[in-house]
């Protein structure tokens, strides 16, 4: 899936439209596109993604850069309103998920607003921000027309990104890869980074040629690190960083991961990532930033069993979730400091009056990291001891039994 504004691009109608072709004399002065060395015969001219010939040439380029067998996949361009209508029709009759208490829990940690967005709001948010999507169940691509020209390198690269997903699907079956479903926020982000990261990296590689650049001169490392900074900055400004992490983390860290794998092993160098995907965001971040010790599996945290409290939801926020909280708290270098994560478990309970309570437990690599969670937070208590920390929250008062249990866990009782 390709999201808007993850790469700044020419967005004005005055640039790149097929109605403004350069004069023959001007065109002669511009150097012809420098082909990617791995795809010397591909077509690098900007083209209209609504045209079948363009779709074929972009699909061929995608297969070439990824060293895959060419694939024909249905491609449809929908207006934003038509895409919204499609999503609404598909959602009709599907009951709304029960997330109210989980939303409240995230709000205590400033990872989400208190009010759950309506289905219509979520659909509109998605449609507004998505440039293209590959639908693995239907094996088709939708490009969302946001009113910009359809024949720019930017939109051509978007189509290429989605074709890469189709190629991934052909190799690995995206509906089932890698076998075990990812059950947590942390695991889903780590896994999505493989899928979106590879597509993002090949998009960057191809777009360099589409922009008229000689790829031999392009500094991909710098561009992808800037891309990472950009997505992190977006999250710092977000009022829903938990939700928006799905639209940022996999692209920022994933593209770096794919680039480094490509540097090591060429186009099929990413096969190694597919065969052994990162299990946690900490593992991915530690490897890509070259910091700390990568943790492939999280430590498990024990479940409190307290009379009167029923487990409502459970999740693992991971190092990335820890980073989000630290960033919200104004901690300096949150990404680096979050790498001390060794395991966490966020659990939401309800009492007999259906009031929600949160207990977020963390195992960390240092006492300094654990102490970062003891800041005063409205409606919550945060404590640490040695390398353990917890945050417990409640609407009216922190549940004494829950906090007492967490205190005992802190000290290893």
């Amino acid at each position, binding site marked *: 899936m390709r999201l808007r504004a993850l*790469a700044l691009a020419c967005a004005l109608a005055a640039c790149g439209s097929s109605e403004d072709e350069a004069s023959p004399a*001007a065109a002669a002065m511009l150097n012809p596109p420098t082909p990617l060395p791995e795809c010397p015969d591909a077509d690098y001219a900007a083209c209209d993604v609504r045209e079948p010939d363009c779709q074929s040439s972009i699909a061929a380029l995608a297969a070439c850069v990824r060293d895959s067998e060419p694939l024909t996949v249905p491609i449809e361009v929908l207006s934003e309103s038509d895409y919204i209508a499609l999503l609404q029709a598909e959602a009709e009759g599907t009951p709304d998920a029960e997330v109210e208490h989980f939303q409240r829990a995230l709000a205590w940690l400033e990872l989400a607003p208190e009010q759950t967005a309506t289905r219509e709001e979520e659909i509109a948010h998605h449609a507004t921000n998505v440039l293209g999507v590959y639908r693995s169940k239907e094996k088709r691509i939708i490009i969302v027309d946001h009113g910009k020209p359809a024949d*720019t390198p930017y939109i051509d690269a978007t189509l290429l990104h989605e074709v890469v997903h189709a190629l991934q699907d052909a190799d690995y079956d995206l509906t089932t890869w890698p076998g075990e479903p990812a059950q947590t926020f942390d695991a889903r982000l780590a896994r999505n980074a493989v899928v979106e990261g590879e597509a993002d990296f090949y998009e960057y590689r191809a777009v360099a040629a589409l*922009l008229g650049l000689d790829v031999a001169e*392009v500094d991909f490392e710098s561009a992808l690190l*800037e891309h990472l900074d950009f997505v992190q900055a977006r999250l710092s400004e977000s009022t829903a960083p938990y939700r928006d992490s799905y639209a940022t983390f996999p692209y920022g860290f994933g593209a770096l991961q794919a680039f480094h794998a490509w540097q090591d092993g060429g186009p099929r160098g990413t096969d190694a990532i597919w065969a052994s995907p990162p299990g946690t965001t900490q593992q991915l971040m530690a490897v890509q930033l070259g910091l700390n010790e990568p943790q492939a599996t999280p430590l498990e945290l024990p479940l409190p069993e307290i009379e009167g409290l029923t487990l409502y939801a459970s999740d693992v926020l991971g190092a990335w979730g820890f980073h989000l909280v630290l960033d919200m708290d104004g901690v300096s270098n949150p990404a680096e400091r979050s790498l001390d994560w060794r395991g966490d478990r966020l659990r939401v309970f309800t009492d007999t009056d259906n009031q929600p309570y949160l207990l977020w437990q963390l195992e960390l690599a240092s006492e300094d990291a654990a102490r970062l969670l003891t800041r005063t937070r409205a409606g919550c208590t945060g404590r640490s001891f040695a390398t353990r920390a917890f945050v417990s929250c409640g609407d009216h008062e922190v549940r004494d039994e829950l906090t007492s249990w967490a205190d005992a866990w802190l000290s290893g009782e």
Partner: protein
Amino acid sequence: MQPFWSWVGIAGGLVGACACSSGDEPDAGSYEAGLAALCDGLSEGYRRCRVRNRDYDYCGYSPEGYDGQGLAAVGACLRTEDCEALASDEPAAHCFDEARRTAPLRQVVVDYCESASLNYFRCNSWWSVEDCSEGMRLWNDATLLNAVGCHQQPCEELSNCETIVFEHPR
């Protein structure tokens, strides 16, 4: 996103009166000659269309840093510009766009754009060489050469550096 200085010249140029004089003829191709051609074209357009509530001898454009030949192309367009456009709040906007698209492409523009596109890419900003060459064609050689000097800056400095160059052109 396309840098704003591809159009800042127009905004900057709307302030101040035309400095055209009837003294010695400026060198053909110079900024002065180009500006004179622009102003003459605008004046002729106003008269042809009998645009109301306009001083036909008041130009109002002096886009600093623009190439003389480009400005002359704007003037040629204004002579035959649509009357509705001439009567609008931005009478020369369409002609500036036309000039950008049709003015001769100079090697200095190509050199600037190849450098800009490469270094903006390094900074996670996508601007094709072709789009740049169309958007930047009206800037003069000295300003573009000055801007190239910004391209080796770190990403957080690059944009600021170019802003200064294009807001205070040579």
